[in-house]
């Protein structure tokens, strides 16, 4: 019994210590979590989305040695243990692009009407032939993802993107869609934004049918309607997009959202993206996985 008590006391002490430790860890994590910073607001009381979002990681830059020699090695996807054990880890066993598998395992994929299943698979299998982005066309909405920089005024939201030096100007003064522009067929569509609580909700129509929703052959019609949402929480920005396209989809598709951190470097700026020129497609022995 005496022994048991000693054990019980020791166990209780250990549990208490781990709670204290956990509490300290949580405190440290909370202090470091950019979402716990106060959310800045504009004079009209709305969250201020302005800022450089994401980036700041950088790194990877290597410098030449004193003789001017330089070695820059990219880290590829490592072979699995099973591949290595089987001696299967040589080049050429897998034409799947990096990150392709994880992107295919997303929580949701668009549900196409059955008559389009074959088309989607054909586009997917022949991505390097059909994918507009592979051929240096714009990514379009929503494939372009969240902006890299936002400038917010009381009446406009100016979204800037690093890839392709693209900008979008979204009126947020309560106006409806422009009757002419909303019938246009463009890569970024006709967008109008409004606040719903602390979330900026952007309604977009007037798309072409050339851009893809995402790279695995996910095409859309020119009747696509996208609802894009931006929510600032502290120094983080949550980006979401919902795709409605009753012409080809059976139900709305929720694009996998992303959360960006405010760039911690106050001097961070957008870098000019260089022109894109596709020269690989003609030499590729497979058209898969664009």
């Amino acid at each position, binding site marked *: 019994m005496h022994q048991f008590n000693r054990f019980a006391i020791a166990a209780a002490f250990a549990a208490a210590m781990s709670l204290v430790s956990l509490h300290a860890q949580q405190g440290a994590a909370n202090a470091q979590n950019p979402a716990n910073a106060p959310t800045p607001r504009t004079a009209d009381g709305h969250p201020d989305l302005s800022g450089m979002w*994401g980036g700041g990681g950088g790194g990877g830059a290597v410098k030449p040695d004193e003789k001017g020699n330089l070695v820059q090695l*990219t880290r*590829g996807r490592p072979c699995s243990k099973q591949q290595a054990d089987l001696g299967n880890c040589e080049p050429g066993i897998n*034409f799947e692009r990096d990150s392709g598998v994880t992107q295919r395992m997303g929580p949701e994929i668009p549900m196409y009407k059955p008559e389009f299943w074959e088309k989607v698979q054909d586009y997917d299998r022949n991505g390097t032939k059909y994918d507009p982005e592979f051929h240096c066309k714009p990514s379009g909405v929503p494939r372009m993802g969240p902006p890299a920089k936002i400038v917010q005024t009381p009446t406009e939201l100016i979204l800037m993107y690093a890839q392709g030096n693209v900008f979008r100007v979204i009126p947020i003064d309560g106006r409806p869609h422009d009757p002419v522009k909303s019938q246009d067929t463009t890569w970024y569509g006709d967008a109008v934004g409004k606040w719903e609580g602390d979330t900026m909700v952007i309604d977009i129509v007037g798309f072409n049918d050339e851009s893809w929703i995402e790279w695995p052959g996910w095409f859309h019609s020119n009747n696509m309607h996208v609802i894009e949402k931006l929510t600032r929480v502290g120094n983080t920005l949550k980006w979401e997009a919902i795709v409605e396209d009753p012409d080809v989809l059976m139900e709305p598709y929720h694009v996998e959202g992303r959360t960006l951190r405010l760039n911690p470097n106050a001097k961070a700026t957008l870098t000019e993206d260089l022109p894109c020129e596709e*020269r690989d497609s003609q030499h590729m022995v497979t058209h898969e996985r664009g």
Partner: protein
Amino acid sequence: MKKMFALLAIVALSLAARPAVAHHALQAEFDTAKRGEFTGTLTKFAMINPHVRWFFDVKKADGTTEQWEITGAGPQALRQNGMTRIFSVGQTLKVSYAPARDGSHTGRVVTFTFQDGRTVTMYHEDPNNPNDL
């Protein structure tokens, strides 16, 4: 501990981000198990997306000239390294590369050797398993 949590937060946020321009598998275009080599004159250096290009004239033993096109990583890597001005038209470079599978005069650079002996290697950490161009 603070540092560890800051690091974890950064890792978590970077996991939420996606690669910028994920392109295609290197092996779909080039045979990474093989190496080719030539010495040629740089005729054009193109800082373009999605991959930087070097164009060469290569004199053959029979007096004829072949045109070669060598590709590498995206331009951002060279910009970050401050390397965008180390190549200039007219330079003679020895080029080691992974050859194209279609037999064309194209390749994925492994190492450039300058005439003064400097070498610039831009390839993959594990040369036996490079998964992206």
